[in-house]
């Protein structure tokens, strides 16, 4: 057992030694030559850093403080409190954080959180205006809004929202896009064969699974959604659904054993999937998003991310399909086929790893467009609830009070820079993949 593991490690090392001329590392070398793209990538790391450590960058609570001989880490502790594992002593919610007589304290660089209301500097105080502050540390470097929220803190919180939207919506889109693109590209119209008798079995199983998992349990699920425990009930529902599909699979195996029913026909997977892509592309995405979020009323960031993911996978699928249509005719795939490997094994172990790099292009442009989409949505006041600060809803505050140029300049600039960074990375990848 032990030796096997070691052997595998060595094999991996040898493989990674060869990596130097793999398509990925070649592309990496070409990408490195494009300085704009490299700097964009570095800036992206900075954005990730801000998004991940947002609470340590802009917070009214100190990162570390010593009070009456006791040491506290209030920012860290807030995570525990949010999880219900801890609670604040009375004095921490009786007094504001800047009122304690600390023996030692380290405040975050921006001593406000996006929700802190600075009553003394309300009513759109500009960055260059006179501010009522006790020391320079408390200056609102990017101004405040009508209620006295610090714009700089809002920008930090907005970075987190934007990154979250970009990454999660594109993860959903990548999952769907890679799956469908791989099926369409690898199998094309000619290589996917299926027993015609198993098609009605699968359709029936889908319908019955849907019925028993979700419709017959609809009341249980809706009550769970109201009173908690939805995750568990949903898990049971998915188990039932999976079981129905498993039964269908067993039934088709059984059918395959009967010689009279054992036939195979070609399923034009490529045609079906590409038609779906075209149909989906013809539906105006922004209008759809706007209507769905409007109808659902209680919009949340996750609904917005899910919808963006569900409508923006087509680009990824197309990229991957085109790449796989090329790869599947290469000799090494042919030889894998000749060795008798199953289609799925060839697809996942041999074809897909070599086809995934171009998908990065589609993903990085996709992140840019979904950040843009979300900020346009929250600019209009839809989608994400009031309590989440986004660049879009900061920017929309500038419309109400034209004098507040800082509310227009900074959040809009942040959207612009982020979108440009992702577009530049996408450009860089495109050029790196082009063999010239």
């Amino acid at each position, binding site marked *: 057992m032990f030796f096997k593991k070691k052997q595998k490690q060595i094999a991996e090392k040898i493989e990674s030694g060869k990596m130097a001329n793999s398509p990925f590392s070649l592309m990496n070398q070409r990408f490195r030559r494009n300085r704009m793209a490299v700097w964009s990538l570095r800036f992206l790391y900075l954005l990730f850093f801000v998004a991940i450590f947002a609470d340590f960058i802009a917070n009214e609570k100190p990162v570390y403080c010593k009070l009456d001989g006791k040491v506290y880490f209030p920012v860290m502790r807030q995570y525990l409190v949010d999880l219900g594992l801890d609670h604040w002593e009375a004095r921490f919610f009786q007094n504001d954080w800047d009122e304690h007589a600390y023996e030692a304290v380290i405040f975050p660089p921006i001593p406000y959180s996006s929700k802190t209301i600075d009553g003394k500097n309300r009513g759109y105080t500009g960055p260059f205006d006179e501010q009522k502050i006790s020391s320079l540390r408390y200056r609102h470097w990017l101004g405040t809004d009508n209620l006295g929220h610090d714009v700089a803190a809002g920008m930090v919180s907005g970075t987190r929202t934007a990154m979250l939207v970009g990454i999660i919506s594109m993860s959903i889109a990548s999952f769907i896009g890679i799956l469908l693109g791989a099926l369409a590209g690898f199998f094309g119209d000619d290589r996917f064969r299926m027993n015609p008798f198993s098609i009605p079995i699968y359709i029936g199983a889908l*319908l*019955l699974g849907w*019925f*028993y998992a979700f*419709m*017959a349990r*609809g*009341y249980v699920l809706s009550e769970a959604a109201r009173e908690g425990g939805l995750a568990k009930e949903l898990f049971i529902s998915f188990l039932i659904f999976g079981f129905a599909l498993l039964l269908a699979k067993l039934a088709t195996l059984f059918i395959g054993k009967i010689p009279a029913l054992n036939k195979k026909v070609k399923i034009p997977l490529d045609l079906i999937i590409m*038609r779906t892509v*075209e*149909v*989906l592309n*013809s*539906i*105006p*995405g*922004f*209008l*759809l998003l*706007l*209507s*769905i979020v*409007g*109808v*659902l*009323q209680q919009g949340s960031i996750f609904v917005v991310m899910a919808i963006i993911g569900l409508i923006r996978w087509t680009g990824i699928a197309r990229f991957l399909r085109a790449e796989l249509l090329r790869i599947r005719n290469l000799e090494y795939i042919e030889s894998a086929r000749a060795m008798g490997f199953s289609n799925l094994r060839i697809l996942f172990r041999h074809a897909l790893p070599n086809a995934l790099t171009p998908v990065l292009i589609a993903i990085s442009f996709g992140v*840019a467009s979904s950040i*843009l989409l979300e*900020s*346009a949505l929250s*600019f*209009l006041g*839809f989608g994400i609830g009031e309590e989440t600060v986004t660049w879009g809803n900061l*920017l*929309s505050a*500038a*419309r109400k009070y*034209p*004098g507040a*140029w800082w509310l*227009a*300049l900074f959040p*809009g*600039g942040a*959207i*612009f820079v982020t*979108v*440009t960074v992702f*577009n*530049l990375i996408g*450009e860089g990848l495109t050029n790196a993949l082009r063999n010239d």
Partner: protein
Amino acid sequence: MSITSARIASLTHMFSYLTNRIALFIPTLLLASMLTFGLSKLAGGDPVLDYLGSDPFGTVTDAPHLLRAENIYRRAAHKLSLDRPAFYFSFTSQAYPDTLHKILLKQRRETAEKLIAQYGNWPQIEAYLHSLRNMEIETRSLPDSLASAATPVNIPLQDLYIDYKNKTIENRLAEIGQVVFKNKKLAAFLGSPFNDLKNKYAAVISEATPGKLKIPAVRWHGTGNQYHIWISNFVKGNFGISTFDQRPVTAKLAPAIFWTLAVNISAILLAFLISVPLGVWSAARKGSRFDKTTTVGLFMLYSLPAFWIGTMLLIFFTTKEYGMPFFAGPGLGEVPSAAPWWEKLWSAMPHLFLPVICVTYPALAFITRQVRGSMVNVLGQEYIKTARAKGLSEKKVIWKHGFRNALSPIITMLASVFPAAIAGSVVIEVIFNIPGMGWLTYGAILQKDWPVVFAVMMLGSVLTVVGILVSDVLYAITDPRVRFGK
């Protein structure tokens, strides 16, 4: 091959190509319409109450009043064809009756559905709900002397229409029972209807048939369903009635479409006028400083969010705040309502300047990039070298030999840019307060005026599909390879 047979071959190829593309029309519109229709079912609130504007049940005091309110509601529901099944077929469990849509009040229908989901015995539940209504009528038609004694009954009775949990229903029944039997005179009037209600509810519990909930049932409703009526009205150009001001949606859309088209057509024309020469020039001077600056500049322009630029232009150049009120502010100013369209456009011109810029520049950036790419591609071909070798002037080489061949992807872009611009102009219209389609949609969502929202969404899909189709036709006309089926 003679010339005529070649032409026939090309026509048949083009015909099959186009029918192939038109075939896409149907699934797209089907999906868009189903999405829209599904959304309309998801929308919260009662569409009949939205349509009526006020709740006819809100002011009910006595039995005739109640019956009248029910009548008003029924008529409105019939007019909106909400008294019909939702779709061609339904896929539910055996426990649900195929006549559930006959319960008109959305709230009561939802209660009935939840009761069925628990007990699965529709006949008993129907009897219970019937008895509940009977009880309400009896309570409403009490003589005046007893009405005040019966008022504590009203609230739990109304609550019973919403309650579906056994515990709460039993509590409410006990509450009502206490009031009814405390007063002997009241008991004489309400005793028997109350006992009936209680017995009917007991029957729901005792004669439950949860097994029926586990048997799937598919029911066919035919074409007399809500979706069918909605989509056939849409095809006929009847988009329904706005629930906000009771005007036909078509009447609200027509002026909105005018302003949206005014902004978008001028923006796209402007974009093409600038971007075609720009793209051709920078492709002809590929690698020069001019090319590099335009490429970087256009890339930046492409990444600039239009709603940011719109907001900045609005606050810096239309307000006196910064001493630069060069342009007219949001809105259209005084537009003569009865004037012909060109006069309307003329009077709104100063207000349209900034929005047109905001729609133009992203399209400009996109088109220029495409034109440049297409031209670079063409200029690298052998026949351009030949043309140069022949001693033709550079101008002739670029425009006559190069540009002509780069033209077909450029023309096809015209059709695909258009739908994108319309969707993108939603935010611009809202920023600059232009009463176009986007502005209308935005307002309609805020007012929960769903018929308008759904009509715009459907129109948007139709426009997009038509745009794609037009671009395909243009492509087929300009590119001989398509015509000859290669």
